[in-house]
């Protein structure tokens, strides 16, 4: 296993626009609370190169989840803009935005959000099925990815028949199956016991070789240490951490 820090892409900084997977410019998000305006994010700048893996840390309530939602186009910013693969999320029509999200993004949440009615394979195949891939092919590719995350023996298991760590690995497989340009993770180990967390951690390590860029929100220093760089959200701004 190579050290991901050593494999940091050479073009990580100051590269031309087309080499940036995800960029935000002057990104701000404020919530109206009665007549009070709570600014959660203010002037967030970020540029992510292909294959670059960053950790985002910050105190609880600092706006980490809010940032991920904006990056994924699930929420609309009150200022600034997000560019995913060169496309401004705010100006895309809904259909295009959904398609972009489906093809270029993977999500992993603190809770696995697997659908209880379906087995692991069908859960993983979900993004492909939503995309319109033929069922047979989607299930075959899901099986491949599940194999890669070490769950070849669990294809037909329902979420209720899997351990916490296994569920989270299925969720990661689901985020990767569509070969997205960028994977957004929100505390992927936050809900796991130490042993399961270690499994997931190992998996994230193994995925270091992937072309996909990663934004991992985490409280876990062990995960942060495995990323190319760590940024901290403080008072609405994203700053490099010493």
């Amino acid at each position, binding site marked *: 296993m190579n050290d991901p820090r050593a494999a940091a892409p050479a073009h990580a900084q100051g590269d031309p626009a087309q080499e940036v997977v995800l960029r935000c410019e002057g990104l701000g998000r404020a919530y109206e609370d009665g007549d009070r305006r709570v600014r959660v994010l203010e002037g967030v700048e970020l540029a992510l190169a292909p294959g670059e893996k960053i950790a985002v840390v910050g105190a609880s309530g600092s706006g980490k989840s809010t940032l991920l939602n904006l990056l994924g186009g699930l929420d609309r910013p009150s200022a600034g803009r997000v560019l995913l693969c060169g496309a401004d999320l705010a100006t895309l029509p809904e259909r295009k935005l959904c398609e972009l999200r489906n*093809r270029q993004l993977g*999500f992993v*949440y603190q809770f696995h*959000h697997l*659908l*209880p009615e*379906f087995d692991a394979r069908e859960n993983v195949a979900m993004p492909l099925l*939503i995309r319109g891939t033929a069922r047979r092919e989607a299930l075959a590719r899901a099986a491949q990815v599940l194999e890669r995350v070490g769950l070849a023996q669990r294809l037909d298991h329902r979420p209720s028949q899997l351990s916490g760590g296994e569920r989270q690995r299925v969720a990661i497989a689901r985020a990767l199956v569509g070969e997205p340009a960028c994977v957004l993770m929100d505390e992927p180990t936050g809900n796991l016991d130490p042993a399961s967390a270690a499994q997931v951690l190992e998996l994230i390590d193994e995925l270091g070789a992937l072309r996909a860029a990663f934004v991992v929100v985490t409280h876990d220093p062990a995960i942060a240490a495995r990323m190319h760089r760590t940024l901290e959200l403080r008072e609405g701004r994203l700053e490099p951490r010493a």
Partner: protein
Amino acid sequence: MRLPELQVWVWAWKLWRTRATQALLSVLGVVSGVGGLVLVLAVGAGAQQEMRSALGALGSGTVILQADNHGALDAARLARIGALLPELVEQSTGVAYRQAEVGAGESHPGRARLVGVDSQYASMFSLRLHSGRFVTPYDVVHRSPVCVVGARLGRALFPRRQVLGQVVQYGASWCRVVGVLADNRTRLPDLEGVGVSASDYLLYLPVTTIVGSGSAYALDEITVRFSDEAHLGAGLDSLRRIVERQRAEGEIRVVVPVEVLRQKHRLQQVFQYLLLGATFVLLVVGGTGIMNNMMLNVLSRRAEIGLRRALGATRADIIAQFVSEAMVIAVAGGLAGIILGALSAMLLGWVSDWQTQFSLAAGAAGFAVSLLVGIVFGSYPALQAAAVSPVRSLHEL
């Protein structure tokens, strides 16, 4: 919609499989509603069929005179009717009925109805022969000891032998079988006393053979066919006058089979409208049941909706998914309802004198209605589902 059609149905099916009880409860209304609809259509189709076969067998201009007591009708009057209305009457025939024990050799099937007929009878009632011939004018004049048997009676009398040419005993007399009727598949209306309904189990003999000789033998029924329905009105008036004039001799009833059927069908129509109303209510209740279930579904699956949106599902995809879930359950209920409707139509036709007929068209209508219920009552919950905010729903857990 980018979702391939099939995929949506797979998801919908899996969903309901895991919630079978819930599905069953919410779909009962649709089952009974569609069942009622199919039953209404089967009753309507049966009435039409009944009318068609009655018209086919009797024609629309047929009137039957029935003697309420012995001697009210006789052969002389039959001749007079023909003579009085030559331009209106196309055909007429007189019938006498008797009951007798019938038997042949070893087999004694029991009592059967004897029908004394003339040579006109077979063509007036559209009887079809399987083999042999029908009663001829010669038979009537000479009181020949011959008979024609209904298909079922023939089989009862001679289970393993050819029927034609055999000798049948009725009461204390004998006759030779000269004709066998074909199986009577079309069920004719049961009009009291009109001997067309159960031709399968009748024994036809020359009328003179069973009632005795002379020119004025008593008849139980005279059937008159006017040349067409347009003449029916005028013909009926004349007939009634003739009947009135001879009232002293006994009561005579005038039956117009088509009218009797229309009367019966008018009654059925009232039933149909009532049932249709109930069906409508049941469908609305059923649809509301599905809608209620779907609303609960939307509430309890907010996280799933958010997740699907995060994975790239559009609002239209979410709508398609929830509408198809409602459609799957509505159609499943509809199919059960079609079966229920067909069975109850069969049962109704069995226990009553109503003719019912389940047709593919009724099934298709039931299917279409259940589909419509699914779409109509699934739309609102589906719109609610599409309006779920992915950000909030994902972080609600």
